[in-house]
């Protein structure tokens, strides 16, 4: 089988200015932060990010790499609203596509199924349709004739996800209690990359948890990166909880330009290895 092991920097080499990227996880939970940091180092611009947003969207807001955000929410969980995202929205600098959380899921599913849209009641009657004039409704072709929102597919160029374990050929395992929608992100993308806490043999992978935890199969991903702490500072149970102290430090930089510059210099303008050293100390 193909050995798809690579480094984070090799993976993000696929991303060029103006691309649409999908980012797995949920809020401040199991986010592929090593990839996010690598994208910051690479300095790609004018990105469109499709995400159940957390610090991924927040960091790209702060670095100015984000042109457009497509999201169901942008939250740090223990801090309900992502502060850098808040800033970008209030400054009016961000092109935003705000969807109901469930609509967002249907957009991902439509993309994964190569459909132009999927229908739903979510959004009907709300201002989500007003702020997103590109959203259209569709009438049931059956006798009921009911009208639904036609959620357009959320197709992405490149998707990034982070798993607890993976093998070298791209089978991935989520050992936490919620798989989120990382498989759909991979299937909605032209190309997907997976980081993980640890690359193990396929035997170890299969015996390391219930079969239902094998969320990603090797068809879905083009590259596998071993990135211990790759979801830090978001949570990655059972390997580690969210680093709340670090998250508070990060959040505080939204109100203080100097603090942001220092944070960026210390934690983002450095290699992944140096990042992990800095947060361990």
């Amino acid at each position, binding site marked *: 089988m193909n050995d798809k092991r690579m480094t984070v920097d090799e993976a993000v080499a696929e991303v060029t200015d103006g691309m649409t990227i999908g980012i797995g996880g949920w809020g401040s939970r199991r986010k592929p932060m090593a990839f996010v940091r690598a994208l910051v180092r690479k300095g790609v611009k004018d990105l469109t990010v499709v995400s159940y947003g957390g610090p991924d969207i927040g960091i790209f807001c702060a670095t100015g790499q984000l042109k457009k955000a497509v999201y169901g*929410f942008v939250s740090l969980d223990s801090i309900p609203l992502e502060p850098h995202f808040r800033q970008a929205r*209030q400054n009016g600098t961000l092109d935003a596509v*705000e969807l109901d959380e469930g609509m967002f899921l249907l957009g991902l599913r439509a993309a994964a199924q190569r459909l132009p849209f999927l229908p739903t009641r*979510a959004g009907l*009657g709300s*201002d*989500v349709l007003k702020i997103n004039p590109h959203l259209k409704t569709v009438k049931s072709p059956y006798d*009921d004739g009911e009208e639904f929102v036609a959620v357009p597919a959320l197709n992405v160029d490149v998707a990034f996800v982070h798993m607890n374990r993976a093998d070298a050929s791209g089978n991935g395992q989520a050992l936490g209690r*919620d798989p989120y*929608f990382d498989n759909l992100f991979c299937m909605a993308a032209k190309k997907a990359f997976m980081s993980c806490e640890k690359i193990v043999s396929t035997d170890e992978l299969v015996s390391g948890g219930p079969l239902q935890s094998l969320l990603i199969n090797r068809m879905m991903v083009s590259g596998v990166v071993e990135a211990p702490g790759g979801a830090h500072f978001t949570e990655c149970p059972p390997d580690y909880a969210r680093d709340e102290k670090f998250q508070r430090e990060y959040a505080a930089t939204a109100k203080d330009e100097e603090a942001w510059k220092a944070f960026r210099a210390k934690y983002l303008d450095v290699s992944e290895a140096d990042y992990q050293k800095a947060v361990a100390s």
Partner: protein
Amino acid sequence: MTSTEATRADVCALAVAECFRGDGEIMVSAMGTTPSLGARLAKSTFEPDLLMTDGFNLLLRRALPLGAKPTDGDVEGWMPFGAVFDTLWWGRRHVMMGASQIDRFGNQNIACIGPWEHPKAQLLGVRGAPGNTINHVTSYWVPNHNARALVAKVDMVSGVGYDRAASLGPEGSRFHEIRRIVSNLGVFDFNTPDHRMRLVSLHPGVELQQVIDNTGFELVIPEGVDTTPVPAPEVIGVLRELDPQGYAQKEVVV
């Protein structure tokens, strides 16, 4: 909190619990402190069949105190986000959300203050409010009832109100129901001919004029407004067990 005398927060928690009376075997998702406490009170007393999570992905067979971590023996099932969406589209769910703004027809805003394109204040965003309100029963909790929260017009309709639902026609609106609003001053519903918000009861110690002065639109005020029930001593005992730290006491503005 060890006192057995009912506080305003206790009255609110019972009023929240009453929103779920008769719901039976459906999932309750309660956002925030007082909604969580009220839902747990309902499950612990008169609605034992309600399904509730730990706030993450475990369905719990009993209502735990606020802040308590579940043990394996408390778990009865699994409700990851994918299953939450399936459940809410299925309709077997009653959610109680907060509302930064809410109008006379129950249109709710949690998204932003000011124009959405360039908000004065970015709030949570619409989150799941559009899908929740059009798919299943919704109630709201307003801990600080004032004319900035109960407004003539919300800045962005996140949760759908009765006038918006009616405009969808009988098909589109058939799963829409706003059961009740509980605020720190009273209980409200929409059981009026045109589904305008109606005062149901005033919490003990609250004057009618106080509610009128703190509401940014004209409420329907029936003759002979009730007083919100005060929890009996044994119910207060349950509330103390479910909220030993008194989180709800701090949330409710008197």
